[in-house]
């Protein structure tokens, strides 16, 4: 790679696939015939694959490739695949290709490498047959895994009944070959594996040997409880040794210790090592190639106030190369890195795009249905089970069918073209393709209709692969009958389909950002830097939110200096309009076209904007526990931080400080973990130790949740003699005013030490409480104004936890910062850029297309009961007064077409277009053509 930000030249070596991507349809006939078996790399080498294969079921492109174990490549023998491929997609003449690309920015998204337990003898991995890693286990559980979803032991192919998970394998250890940091994701993925194991086999006994349980993510605490409450599940807090393997049964014995029973040995059928996350295999190579620096742990070094930025301008990073991250964070750092590329390259936006032009649409609404049926062989996927020619002949006999034929691969470019041509030639006005699931290919086939000048909603897909040939491979005749049934139903529905309009809505190019904390300001700046006006609304008179009270981060960032700089940039930006001390009085509109009224010193302003970002932050719980509010020696960590920074003598000169974790959360009132408090307490403890090394600091905790690289600071604190004592929620510490032996007034803190098994009494000058982070007081109101949901815990609820982590289900409204869930400053910044990235994908377009499949109301039939309104989660239905009384009206822009309202309407007055009763009933009637009851 050479060049600089805005103009890089990257040379890529493209390895030969020996398969032509545009010809291969992924039918996998070649895989069946290939004689070379070798361990399947994607399935952790547990089962066998062939030299020619698709890497995994979701691979993109979903086509085969040939790897170096191929006989032809090694010895010029075989080439069976070439002879069986009906599409002539095999090409052994391919050579490695050097490709040069000219790009303006680079995103490194190389991910991680799982920790390899083979590097350490004590894990016995590779030595004991029934010791597997969590990745092996993940594949074992998967329907596309080595045993098609059956969890089997390597030694005897039997179902393990008693399974142990060992946590922190390769993580949280300062020994050679281990990682000192916490891998962040293992606690929760183990819980997931336990829950899925119980789904597979309700009788399974699962034991998890763990250190702290780090359920710090949104809803993770509940997930942990769900796993813990299952029958036959034990969570045991203990270090373990894998002791021995029974030579006959190959069962594995584990040695562990509990305070009650001391050291014990127990036998398990299978042991799963919850392996941690290592940097990508060739991190150093990557670093050298791209000229970027790495951290001491070997991950990508990033800017603390912009964690997507590497040490080299124009090169960004997303996902776990930044450090151990889970899926939601990987997803929004990807959007965030995208947004940064947008900032860098905004001047070139849209220069390489081309618009597609379709022929004009024929109006066939008055014409008799003329249905064309195309039955796909899908190579042999359908063809070897279903008698395709017979299905084609049958199709021709169905009412309204004008034309039917078979195709080898309907999705192949030539076949799709054939559909378009035949539709024109035969005057078809409805098309049914009998092939696979509409989930993957419906958009493609709709497109072929548009190419033929037919409305795309005149298309229906009969799924005779997933719903037929794949599941009835052994019953060919019956499968053929079923395929015919499915086609008949599809034709019946197609005959009733109607043309629908997708309409383009104009997009107002401005954004509204609600909340002027770090999240809101960062997001606003990133949007404005890409040329869009931003209206930034803050309820307080000052910007900065909770960060105004934070002085440093655990990593040592000067938060106040950073904040001042951020605020200055916001105020100076010509495209950002700030409204401080403001309240939102009204919010209306929909994606691309919102209208929000804001009251501020400037009076009431009506703002028109295309996108909305909710970044209203959080509040800090004011504890009533442990004498807080009664005794001024009891403070929250935030108050403690303020007093440390002010140099308050009572604090920095104290002889003893006790910190109590989990105050106001992880309880019945707030059943979540506030995520940041453990690191927060460590930060203050280290700060105090720095100022006053002699100070006695004791942290009373439930689980220390210093995930990721914060683990290093936890260890540092322990090394500096900060004492950590665990307490149980049913045996909380007690705080009472009292006197020390010397007669000094102190706070007497009592707690149970579970390791030593005795009661402790500590004299403290100050007690600092890790108070919960709670939803902002204004959340409820903001939620109602913008009609966006809150989760059970009162934080804003994103559209999809993993796939759409910074969006609401309602289009055009986005989310970032602690309004989503408590998080650290660097995490907030990541998410803010992520939201900006999503906002830009909307605002960079002039129009948005709304689906044609939305609900409509037959006003005559509607009697205004409102059942549909309460069923609609998207606020798409409203009452409307008419001369005929109260009726409902659907806003097609907000309607998501989920059809919930249809089922609720007593008089069937509301119907979902493209899924009307008429269409669906026609389909059901066709399923049972000979029957008639009632």
């Amino acid at each position, binding site marked *: 790679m050479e060049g600089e930000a805005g103009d890089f030249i990257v040379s890529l070596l493209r390895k030969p696939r020996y398969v032509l991507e545009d010809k291969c349809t992924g039918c996998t006939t070649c895989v069946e015939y290939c004689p070379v078996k070798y361990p399947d790399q994607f399935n952790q080498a547990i089962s066998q694959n062939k030299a020619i294969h698709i890497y995994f079921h979701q691979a993109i492109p979903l086509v085969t490739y040939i790897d170096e174990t191929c006989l032809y490549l090694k010895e010029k023998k075989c080439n069976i695949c070439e002879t069986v491929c009906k599409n002539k997609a095999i090409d052994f003449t391919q050579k490695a290709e050097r490709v040069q690309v000219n790009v303006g920015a680079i995103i490194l998204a190389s991910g991680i490498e799982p920790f390899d337990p083979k590097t350490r003898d004590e894990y016995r991995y590779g030595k004991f047959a029934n010791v597997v890693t969590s990745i092996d286990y993940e594949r074992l559980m998967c329907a596309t895994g080595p045993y098609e979803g059956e969890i089997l032991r390597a030694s005897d192919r039997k179902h393990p009944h008693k399974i142990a998970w060992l946590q922190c394998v390769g993580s949280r250890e300062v020994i050679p070959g281990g990682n000192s940091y916490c891998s962040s994701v293992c606690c929760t993925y183990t819980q997931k594996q336990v829950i899925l194991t119980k789904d597979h086999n309700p009788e399974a006994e699962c034991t998890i040997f763990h250190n702290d349980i780090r359920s710090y993510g949104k809803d993770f605490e509940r997930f942990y409880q769900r796993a813990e409450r299952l029958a036959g599940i034990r969570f045991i807090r203990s270090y373990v040794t894998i002791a021995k393997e029974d030579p006959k049964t190959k069962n594995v014995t584990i040695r562990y210790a509990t305070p009650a029973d001391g050291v014990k040995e127990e036998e398990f059928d299978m042991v799963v090592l919850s392996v941690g996350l290592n940097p990508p295999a060739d991190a150093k190579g990557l670093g050298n190639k791209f000229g970027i620096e790495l951290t001491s742990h070997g991950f990508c070094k990033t800017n603390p106030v912009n964690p997507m930025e590497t040490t080299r301008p124009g090169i960004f990073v997303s996902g776990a190369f930044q450090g151990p991250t889970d899926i939601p964070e990987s997803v929004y750092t990807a959007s965030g890195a995208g947004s940064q590329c947008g900032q860098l390259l905004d001047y070139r936006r849209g220069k390489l795009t081309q618009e597609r032009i379709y022929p004009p649409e024929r109006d066939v609404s008055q014409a008799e249905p003329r249905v064309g049926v195309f039955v796909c062989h899908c190579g042999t996927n359908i063809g070897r089970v279903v008698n395709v020619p017979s299905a084609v002949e049958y199709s021709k006999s169905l009412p309204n069918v004008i034309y039917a034929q078979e195709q080898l691969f309907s999705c192949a470019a030539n076949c799709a073209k054939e559909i378009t041509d035949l539709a024109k030639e035969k005057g078809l006005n409805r098309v049914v393709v009998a092939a696979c699931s509409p989930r993957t290919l419906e958009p493609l086939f709709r497109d072929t209709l548009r190419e033929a000048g037919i409305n795309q909603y005149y298309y229906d897909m009969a799924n005779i692969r997933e719903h037929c040939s794949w599941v009835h491979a052994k019953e060919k005749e019956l499968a053929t009958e079923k395929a015919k049934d499915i086609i008949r139903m599809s034709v019946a529905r197609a005959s009733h389909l109607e043309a629908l309009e997708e309409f383009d809505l104009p997009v107002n190019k401005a954004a509204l950002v609600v909340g002027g904390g770090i999240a809101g300001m960062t997001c606003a700046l990133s949007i404005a830097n890409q040329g869009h006006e931003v209206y930034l609304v803050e309820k307080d008179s000052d910007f900065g939110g909770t960060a105004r009270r934070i002085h440093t981060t655990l990593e040592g960032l000067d938060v106040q200096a950073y904040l001042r700089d951020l605020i200055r940039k916001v105020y100076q930006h010509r495209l950002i309009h700030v409204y401080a001390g403001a309240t939102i009085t009204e919010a209306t509109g929909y994606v691309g076209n919102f209208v929000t009224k804001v009251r501020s010193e400037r009076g009431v302003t009506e703002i028109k904007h295309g996108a909305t970002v909710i970044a209203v932050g959080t509040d800090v719980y004011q504890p009533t526990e442990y004498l807080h509010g009664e005794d001024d020696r009891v403070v929250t960590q935030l108050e403690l931080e303020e007093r440390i920074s002010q140099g308050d003598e009572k604090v920095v000169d104290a002889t003893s400080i006790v910190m109590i974790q989990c105050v106001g959360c992880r309880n019945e009132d707030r059943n979540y973990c506030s995520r940041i408090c453990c690191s927060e307490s460590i930060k203050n403890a280290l700060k105090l130790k720095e100022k006053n090394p002699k100070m006695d600091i004791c942290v009373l905790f439930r689980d220390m949740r210093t995930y990721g690289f914060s683990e290093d600071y936890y260890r540092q604190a322990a090394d500096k003699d900060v004492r950590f004592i665990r307490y149980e929620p049913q045996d909380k510490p007690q705080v009472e005013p009292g006197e020390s032996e010397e007669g000094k007034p102190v706070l007497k803190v009592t707690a149970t030490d579970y390791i030593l098994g005795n009661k402790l009494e500590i004299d403290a000058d100050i007690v600092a409480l890790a108070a919960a982070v709670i939803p902002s007081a204004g959340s409820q109101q903001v939620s109602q104004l913008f009609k966006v949901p809150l989760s059970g815990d009162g934080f804003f609820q994103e559209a999809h936890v993993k796939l759409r982590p910074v969006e609401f289900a309602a289009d055009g409204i986005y989310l970032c910062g602690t309004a989503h869930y408590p998080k650290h400053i660097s995490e907030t910044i990541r998410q803010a850029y992520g939201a900006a990235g999503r906002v830009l994908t909307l605002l960079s377009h002039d129009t948005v297309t709304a689906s044609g499949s939305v609900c409509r109301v037959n006003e005559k039939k509607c009697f205004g009961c409102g059942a549909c309104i309460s*069923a609609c989660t998207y606020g798409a239905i409203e009452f409307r007064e008419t001369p005929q009384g109260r009726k409902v009206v659907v806003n097609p822009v907000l309607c998501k077409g989920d059809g919930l309202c249809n089922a609720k309407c007593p*008089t069937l007055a509301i119907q979902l277009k493209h899924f009307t009763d008429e269409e669906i009933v026609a389909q059901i009637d066709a399923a049972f053509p000979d029957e008639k009851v009632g």
Partner: protein
Amino acid sequence: MDGVFVGGCRLNECNYITHGNYDALNTVLLCKRIMEHIGLTPERLKVQFMSSAEGILFADVMNEFGNKVKGLGPLGKGEGIDPGELRSRLAEIRRLVPYIKRVNQEKLASRLGNPEAYDGLFTKDEIDRFFREVISYYIVPEKCQACLICARRCPVDAIISAKSMVHVIEQEKCTRCGTCIEVCPARFGAVTTISGAPVPPPLAEDKRTIVRKSKENVAS
């Protein structure tokens, strides 16, 4: 069709914010009670929630359900109901669907946390009572002023009306939505409800003309 299976994602695992599987569950629970009420075996209708990763479970459930329905025999026949009788019972229920949905609107939108609560959502007694006490709407001929309002507003055109003719609700068409009672001017109060008893037969067509006293007075 002798059995219906309704499948969906596990409760609380909705990928969106809709959680429509709760609504499906409630509808199924109500339908089962209605089936029971008209003498059909409720086991012919089954709802089960599973994730897309549970192919084996799905196959097991489908096989089990298929066998179950086969064992029950054809709809009606298995229960020993004469086909003609079954048709008329089903038609009657179908006619009442709008009313059933309207009255149970709130319950149909509830969110049941655990399977133990399923039985209690709609009880047999409740459904039997519900059908005993079905409300019919009836226009009292003596009070009707033939103002046409109710007829115009009726969403299903179930009111036979004409100027100066007493309006009559066609009970076969009526969906019991209650619009007529709501819109009938209070000073007339001509629409009433009748619960659990047959509606009086309508006036013969030639006897529906209203003779307006006020006009007579003016004329004389």
